[in-house]
C-alpha cells in the first residue's frame, strides 16, 4: 500500500508520496527572484526559514493560474532542504495498492515524462504520481 498526498492542478489530480511531504498550508507572500527560471515562483518565509517555491503548473507545462485563485503550498523535503510547491487545491491523503498502478503511456509528452511516475486508477479518475526529485530538479 502506498499513501499519497493529493492535490489538484488545472482540474487534474496529482499525488506525492506522503513521506516526502512536510506540510501543506495556505500560500504565503512570495518574494520574486529576478533572473530565476520561470518555474521558480519566489521565496517565502516559513517560520523564519527562507523556502524556495516552485509553481507546479508552470513546471508541468499547464496553463497559468487565474489571478484570483489563491494557490496552496505543499512543502516537501529534498535532501534536507524544504521546498514549497504551489498547487491549486489540497486533497485527501489516499491509500492505494500496487494493483491500480500503471506506468505512463508512451504518448506522454517527453518534457513531462520524467516528472510523472505513473497513474493510479481510482474510481473517480486517475491519480498522477509525481516524482518529487525530478519536479524540483533545476
Amino acid at each position, binding site marked *: 500500500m502506498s499513501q499519497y498526498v493529493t492535490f489538484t492542478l488545472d482540474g487534474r489530480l496529482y499525488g506525492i508520496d506522503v513521506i516526502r511531504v512536510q506540510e501543506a498550508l495556505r500560500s504565503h507572500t*512570495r518574494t520574486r527572484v529576478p*533572473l530565476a527560471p520561470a518555474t*521558480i515562483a*519566489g*521565496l517565502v*518565509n516559513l517560520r*523564519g526559514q*527562507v523556502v524556495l517555491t516552485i509553481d507546479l503548473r508552470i513546471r508541468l507545462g499547464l496553463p497559468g493560474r487565474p489571478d484570483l485563485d489563491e494557490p496552496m503550498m505543499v512543502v516537501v523535503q529534498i535532501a534536507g532542504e524544504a*521546498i514549497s510547491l504551489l498547487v491549486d487545491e489540497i486533497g485527501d491523503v489516499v491509500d492505494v495498492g500496487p494493483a491500480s498502478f500503471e506506468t505512463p503511456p508512451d504518448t506522454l509528452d517527453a518534457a513531462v515524462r520524467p516528472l510523472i511516475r505513473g497513474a493510479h486508477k481510482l474510481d473517480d479518475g486517475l491519480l498522477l504520481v509525481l516524482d518529487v526529485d525530478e519536479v524540483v530538479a533545476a
Partner: protein
Amino acid sequence: MEDIDEIVREFLVESYENLDQLDRDLVALEKSPGSREYLSSIFRTIHTIKGTSGFLAFGRLERVTHVGENLLVELRDGVRSMDQRTTDVLLRMTDCVREILTHIEADGSEGEVPIDSVIEAVDAIRNGVVPDEVVEAPVAVVQNAPVEAAVPVPKKIGSRAPRTDKVAAAAATSAVIGAPALPEIEPEPVAAPTPTVTTGSTTVQPLVPTQTGAPAAEQLSDEVVTGLRGAADTSIRVDVDLLDALMRQVGELVLTRNQISRLATGTDDVDLSRSAQRLNLIAGELQEGVMKTRMQPIEHVWSKMPRIVRDLAAACKREVHLEMTGGDTELDRGLLEAVKDPLTHLVRNAVDHGIEPAEERVAAGKPAKGVLTLRAYHSGGQVVVEVADDGRGVDTDRVAAKALEKGLRTVEQLDAASHPDLLQLLFVPGFSTAAAVTNVSGRGVGMDVVRTKVEAIGGTVDIDSTLGVGTVWRLRIPLTLAIMPALTVECSGDLYAVPQINLLELVALDGQRSGSGIEYVHSAPVYRLRGDLLPLVSLAGALGLEQDTHDRDQTSVIAVVQADQQRFGLLVDRVLNTEEIVVKPLSSRLRSIGVYAGATVLGDGRVALILDVQAIARRAIVGDLETVSSEARRRAQRAVERPAEVEQMLVVRVGERAVAMPLASVARLEHLRAEHLELVGGREVVRYRGSILPLARLGALLGSYSEPSPNGELLVVVFTRGTRSAGLVVDKILDIVDDDVAQHSDIEDHGLLGSTVLGDRVTELLNVREAILMADASFYDATLDTTDAQGASDLVGALR
C-alpha cells in the same frame, strides 16, 4: 563498543591538535636548538600518542612514535643536537603519524601506511649513518645504551594533564617497549649522556653536551605545570554542529526581536515597548556571546605556517624568517576555515615569488634572510590579515607586458592604468607572472582563486607592492558570516539588501532634478559625484526587471558601492533603512544565478534577497570590459596583421609629382621661415630646437622643379633617429592614405623605390633613406640602442 569508538575519536581529535603543535614546535626547535621548552613539548606529544596507541593496539602507530621518541630522548638528553636533518626526519615521522591517524579516522584501522622507511630514516640518524655529512656525531652506541624508557608510558587516554615525577616514576616499571629501563635518567639526567657516549664503540663527543646540566625530569614537570596547555582545565570541547545550531537559533531570535521591535514602536503600550527594549538588549548580548563561542584565534591557521614556510624555503632555496603578530585575533570558525587556503596560497606565493634568493638579496643591499610577516588586527568591524614580504615586489611593467601578451588589456588601457590598477591585474583570471612554473606556484591558478574564495565569505583582497622593496597582501574579512549589517533598498516594488561592507555612501537625487542629475556617456548613465563621473548601474536593469512604470523620476537614490576596486552607483527606487540581517543560505537552484549572496527575513517578515554587489559589478561593468578587451584583442590582431598589407603613407607634392613616404618614419611636420636657412659647407641647415637640422630639397633629389613658396615659408618633413634629425623640404602635404603593399610596382627611379596606387592616383614611393642621406650623410651611422627601432622602419615597406 560505543565506548571504544568514543575513546578512539577523542584520541584522534587530541592527536591532531597535538600534531599541529608538534609541527610548530619542531620548526621552532630547529631555530633554537637548545630550547628545552620546545623539546619537552615535542617529547610529551609523541609520548602521549605512543602511549595511547599502545593502549588502543595501534601497533604501527606505536612503532613509528617509538622510534621517534628514541630520537627525541637523545635530543632531550643532549646526546645529539638539533639540526636540519634531524628536523626533517622528525617532521617526516609527524607526517607518517598523521597519515596513520587519517586512516584510523577513515575506517578505524591503521591500514597499510608504510612506516618502515620512516623508521629506517630515524634509525639511520640515530646510528649516524649519514652518507653526505659525517660531521654529525655518529652515535653508534644506542644499541648498547637503551634510552627508550627514559620517560615511560602512562597508560591513560588523552593525558593532557600535567605529568608529574610521581606519575613518571610509578609508570617507570611498566615501560611498554621491553627495553631495559634506565630509571636513573629521571632523577639524574646529567648522568645519562655520559654512559651513552662512553659505552659506545667509538669515542665520540656529543656535539652539544648536556645543556646546562639541568635535570630534564624536573624541568619537564615544571614546564608541564605552567604548561602550554594550561587552558585545558578551564575549557571543554563542544561539537561544532551544536555551535552552528546555536548560532542559527540566535539568528532566529534576532529576527523575532526585529519584528517585536517594529511592533513595539507602533504602539503606545509602555509595557510592551519596555519589554521590547529589554529583549533587544538581551538578544544582542546573547548574539554576541554565541558569536564569541565560535571565535577562534587566527593562530589556528597560522600554526601550520612555520612548517609550510620552512619546507618551502628549503625547496625554493630561500632564506626566510617568519614573523607572526596578532595571532590572538579572533575570527569566526567558519571564516577561519575559509581563509586557510587563500592564506596558505599567499604565503607560498610570497616565499616562492616574493622573496629573492639570498645572493640576489645581498646584491640588492638587503639582508640575505628575507622576512615574511603575517599580521592580523581588527579594523572597522573587520579583521585584516596581512601577508607581507620584503622581497622583490611586483614589477608592474612585466605585469603590463603580460596582460598585453595574453590579450587581457589593450595598450591604451595599460597606458592609462595607474600603479594600483596594474597590480589589480594580478587578480584577473588566467593571469600569472611566474616566469617558470615551479612546484609551488605559477600554474595559472592564482590570485583570482584567492580573490574568489575570500569574496565568497564577504571579504576583500588588496595588494600593495613596491618594486624592490616588498609586497603586502591584505585580506579584509568580516567578523562573522551569519549576521551582518545591511541596507535595505526598494527596486521595482521588491526589497533587496545591500551588505553595508560594500556601501560607500548614498546620494539622493532630487525629484525634479533627477532627470538632469543623470547624464549619459553615449548609452552609459553616469553621475557627477563631486566632479568625478560615477558610472551608474540600474538595479532594475541588472536584475532584468522591466520598469513598467517607467517613471525616470522614481529612480531617486544612488547607492555608491565598491566592488573589486571598482566604484559605481547602484540606482534604486528607495532606501528603507539599515538593519542587522541574518544571512540565510540560498537554495542551490538560485545560487547559480550568481547575483544573490543569500536571502534574509526582514523585520516585517518579508523575505529579501541579499545582493552580491561584486557579482553585479562584474555583470554590469567588468562584463563590458571583457567585450572591450576582446574588441581590443581583435584590433591588436589586426594591427599585427596590417603591416604586411597596409601601411599608412604621407603623401606630399613636389613640383608636379606626388610622392609618398611611410608615415611611421616621420617625426614631425614643420613650417620654417626661408630666411632662417643657413649654409654649412654647401648644405642647407636650420637651427631647430636647439640643434642644427640639416635639410635636403626633395625637388632637387627627384629632379623636379619646385617653385619657391610665395610666402617665404618652407614645409619640412622632419625625420628623427636617436638624437639626430634631418629634414626634407617639400611643397605641400597632400594626404595621409593607406597603402596596400600588394599594389606596389617596382618601377624604380632615382630616389624612388617604386610606385603604388594611392587614392586612385599613381604615387611614387620615396626612398627615404637616400633622401635623408642627401641631407645628412651620417644620419644612419650612429648606432642606436634597440629601443629605437624607428631607424629600421624608415625604408618603405619595412614593418612598423
